[in-house]
């Protein structure tokens, strides 16, 4: 109940934020402009529109997570509103959980808006195409299924990024938090290459560090099925469930760490 109240308040606060509107608005403009690129793509219209749209949903979603996550606790502490809240019968972990859930609600809202506009735009475009050109029947169903999966996994990825954002915001300033989260986002996508490096590195210590990085840092590449969506290749239910389990567990670990640090912090 108390967690719900904080989550609802965080959500309301974020929704009123004009920067958030600007980010979502920009994302929608990019999605709608993808058709202009599709026109000059020599017959790869659907692929280009799908790729651009999914990339926009991811990038702007990450921006929302960074912007909101980085400021989430800092503002409360800086404005001293946290004193007021924490003086109530509320535990610090409930405060963190509420804040995080509010942020997840914001991300859900943004993802739903961006995904709906993108999917609707794609549907209109596909419906206007010539009969023999692309995507009909079973292929079309596969395409939409893969697209839906991609949206869902992007949302999960954003939840993990938001958890990292909250974690960094507890231990540092908003600017450092945003930079650290953004770097972790990129490293999380390139982790597969780090694993490849372990075969090349000769030093045992180096190998150990790389392996530790591979297993400790968030494996965000797991959530990246945009490629499959563009080629109408839905992933198996097992893969999707695996991603859900991984995201939930990773977020629990990160948020627990956040709570531990926040509990020890002198406000």
């Amino acid at each position, binding site marked *: 109940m108390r967690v719900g109240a904080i989550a609802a308040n965080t959500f309301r606060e974020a929704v009123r934020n004009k920067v958030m509107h600007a980010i979502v608005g920009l994302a929608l403009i990019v999605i709608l402009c993808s058709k202009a690129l599709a026109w000059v793509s020599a017959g790869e219209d659907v692929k280009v529109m799908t790729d651009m749209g999914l990339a926009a949903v991811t990038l702007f979603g990450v921006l929302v997570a960074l912007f909101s996550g980085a400021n989430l606790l800092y503002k409360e502490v800086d404005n001293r509103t946290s004193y007021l809240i924490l003086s109530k019968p509320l535990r610090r972990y409930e405060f963190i959980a509420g804040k995080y859930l509010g942020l997840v609600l914001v991300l859900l809202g943004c993802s739903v808006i961006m995904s709906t506009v993108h999917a609707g735009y794609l549907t209109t475009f596909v419906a206007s195409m010539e009969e023999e050109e692309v995507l009909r029947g079973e292929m079309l169903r596969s395409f939409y299924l893969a697209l839906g999966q991609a949206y869902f996994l992007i949302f999960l990825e954003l939840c993990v990024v938001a958890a990292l954002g909250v974690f960094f915001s507890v231990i540092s300033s908003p600017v450092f938090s945003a930079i650290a989260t953004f770097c972790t986002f990129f490293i999380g*996508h*390139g982790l597969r290459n780090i694993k490849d490096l372990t075969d090349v590195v000769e030093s045992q210590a180096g190998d150990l560090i790389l392996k530790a990085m591979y297993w400790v840092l968030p494996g965000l590449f797991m959530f990246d099925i945009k490629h499959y969506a563009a080629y109408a290749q839905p992933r198996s239910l097992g893969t999707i469930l695996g991603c859900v389990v991984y995201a939930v567990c990773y977020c629990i670990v990160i948020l627990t760490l956040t709570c531990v640090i926040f509990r020890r912090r002198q406000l």
Partner: protein
Amino acid sequence: MRRAGVVLLVLASLGISLAARIALEPEHEDELLMDMAYLPNGRMLKWISGGMDNMMSDLLWLRSLRYVMDHFDTGRDYRYLYKAYDIITDLDPNFQKAYRFGAYFLSGMTDEYENARDLLKKGWDNNPTNWRIAYDLGSVYDLHLKDPIKAGEWFGKAAHLPDCPPGVRQNATLLFEEKGRLDRALDMWVSIRETTGSDKLKKVAEWNVKRVQSLMIIRSLTAYVDEFRKIRKTLPGSLDDLVEARISVDDHVLSFVPKDAFDEALVYTRKKTNRGEEFSIECRELIRKELDKRKRYFSNLGINPFRRKFGRWPKSLRELVDKGVVTRLPSVPHDVEYDYDPETGELSYDRTLERYNLGQ
């Protein structure tokens, strides 16, 4: 006065900036080339793309199209084309059109046939169920690298994949036949017969299996006749002479004269020419097919148009040339004598059929 000065200053600045922009325009034309030159390695780009590799490959794809178009009229400096498509396909290994267009541009505009081949091979490694890539690879081998056997192999690979139209398989078989690889052609026709869902195509494939098998028998018998001529300094009177003479080819003695795959005796003919005595071994079914084809040719392009023009049948086939309906009478195999009926305009090859005992 002061306002006019400000307007003048703004206009002058605008004019100068525009002039500078125009003056520097040629430098910008090279910009695209330099962009391509400084493209980093595809694997590295993938690493730093943060999961946006597909979007990056799309953007590079659009850039590459502009690169091709911009340089089309101006010197065609495409030295970075292969690099661009290599990177695009590193970023998106399933980008079918990048492989195909890339190979097309490389082979058609820059004569970089080996690069076109390498790009398509990479495409095949990443998309081993895509018949179009295999087909394009076959085309590069056939048209540019002049290696019809490799071309046939790639056409063959394409032909075995689902969704591949039957025409591709037939192309492959013809290519193999042209290069004397009858065994491969036979494999292809058998595969078409076994895998097609169309009854019509199955019949065509069945007929072609027999045709290629007959050609293989003829090729083998030709080797015996050549061997006979080498030893006896003359041609055999009939194919049975090969059995009687116990001619051996590759340590194999002919014990009987085989029939063709249509279960008919082969036609063996000898003919005196300027180069000496020549022979031919042929399959009756194929002769019949050929004669039917010629008959249709005469009727459709000569006799029927003559009747439409003059309102009567020609008195003889020669009249088709005399009246300018056809420029010349086409050559006809096997010294066919036309049996033409000027009353009905009907053509037949009965006497020829009789001579070869071909039957109707």
